[in-house]
């Protein structure tokens, strides 16, 4: 039932967004795309719970993270060396492409009601929505959280909290300071199931 509702919702959104104009403006697949989709999935919808979906992420967020990763300021072991020689123009192409894709929410089951409510309260107290926007769709340099892989969200928040090193946003480290692992798990559950 819930699955069908999601499908219908998604379809309506797709119909609404994909008018003739939007369709003609869909960016072509960039040359470097296979570099990304090998792990981040077709159209950037990741099939791997620890790998984030890039579909529907704000353009500037994708651009800036790819630059930081290429420059070695943000270190992701799985991506080490992968961005070597990828130009700024190619990064902009990739970001344009992913921003134009539709994110398919990964959590399709019914959320755990108690966990969801706890996560909702924590997100309110930490003002997550003031930067990530109240629907957690992200904007500019700030990523979309709604519908992202729950496992990835949890690991990313632990990284922000425990290793605020180079390339890690000091604002995020400060936002999550003092939250326990189970708090982060509640937050991740809430955000992954947010519609």
């Amino acid at each position, binding site marked *: 039932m819930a699955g069908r509702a999601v499908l219908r919702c998604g379809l309506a959104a797709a119909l609404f967004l994909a008018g003739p104009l939007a369709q003609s403006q869909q960016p072509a697949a960039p040359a470097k795309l296979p570099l990304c989709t090998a792990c981040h999935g077709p159209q950037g919808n990741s099939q791997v719970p620890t790998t984030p979906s890039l579909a529907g992420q704000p353009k500037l967020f994708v651009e800036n993270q790819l630059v930081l990763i290429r*420059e070695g300021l943000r270190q992701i072991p799985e991506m080490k060396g992968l961005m070597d020689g990828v130009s700024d123009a190619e990064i902009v192409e990739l970001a344009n492409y992913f921003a134009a894709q539709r994110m398919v929410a990964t959590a399709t089951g019914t959320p755990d009601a108690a966990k969801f409510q706890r996560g909702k309260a924590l997100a309110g107290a930490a003002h997550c929505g003031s930067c990530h926007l109240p629907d957690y769709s992200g904007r500019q340099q700030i990523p979309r959280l709604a519908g992202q892989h729950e496992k990835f969200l949890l690991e990313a928040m632990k990284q922000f909290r425990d290793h605020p090193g180079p390339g890690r946003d000091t604002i995020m480290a400060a936002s999550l300071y003092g939250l326990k692992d189970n708090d982060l798990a509640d937050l991740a559950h809430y955000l992954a199931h947010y519609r």
Partner: protein
Amino acid sequence: MKFKLACTSLALVLAGCAQTPSQPVVSDVAKPLPANVPAWQQGRSQDLAASPLAPHAARLTAVPAAEIPLNALKLPPGFKIELWAAGMPGIRAMTRTDSGKIYAGTRGIGRVYEITDSGAQRTSRVLVDKLTQPAVTYHNGALYVAAIDKVLRYEGIDRDPNVQPADLTARFNLPPEQHHNWKFIKFGPDGKLYVPFGAPCNICVPGEPYAQIRRYNADGSNMEVVARGVRNTQGFDWHPVTKEMWFTDHGRDWMGDDSPEDELNRMSRAGQNYGFPFCHANGVADRDVRKGNPCDGVTLPVVTTGPHAATMGIHFYTGTMFPAEYRNVAFVARKGSWNRTKKFGYDVVTIRTDASGGNARIEPFITGFLDTQKDAFWGRPVYMLQLPDGSLLLSDEQMGAIYRVSYGR
């Protein structure tokens, strides 16, 4: 309704106090981090908790020259602005060597750029990267690079562009906090290197190493604190006649759209206090960190430079290309607001005063980075550098570009 009532009763309680306390009173919102609150949100009262205002995104990819809408800019009659160099994401303060090379620092992207002018065109390369918010200045044949956790000196870089730097970090006693600690560095007429250490918060009682400007000998020795109570200065220059240091300072956030304003200060002698955290702008008492007579002993600014304007570089014009009335006039870049409902700044202004800072008059010089109708910006002007011919370079952090302003007779 309930909220209004609470406010009224609070005002009554405050008015009823026989005496303001002599010990600082710090309200909950200004208590030190960490308190599960982002650094830039700290000092935000409950009524602003749902505000969607957030710092604007920096752009870290190179912007092609064709995408820079330079013709949107407006200058006084006779002045011309052109694109001088592009493709340097995050570019901030610039410095010029004896041979005419330009070096420039950045913030998040961690690079120092080297720009070579062949006359007809400019090319750039990255001199050094992976630094934490590096700033640059050139002095006596050496390029100084100051990051939050590192100081490097490239001796004789004009002769050998690939010279390895000497690491002077250990001599500078750099505190670790990153927030508001990005640098602007410059040598004064006294041959000393001036380095700011901002307050690591929006509003708080900062610890000793913060909210101050220091100066060092060129080798990092003999550190002195020359100014305190400085929240976040982003630029300084020395007055061509009086040789006094003038510096910009950012006002705090989350106290409303229109107050406290940024400051342009004048340092008539070392050791003055500029008010943070108790006294802002031209005598505005802080709401969250309070004490009796908060502005006592505070050197107030020459002029305030607008609410949340993000006042950056200042440059006193000493060239002969511009008309004579621009001589010794301060050019000040305002990067533009984020913590304000309607955007403010995003321009370069001139500030005319008498030599001691009296009768200040602010006038727009370059506008058009902000579309006031749409309340949207495309560029963020940050620092100026005067070339030997008297033209002015202006860096744009958002576009990763340098513009050249000239006057055509």
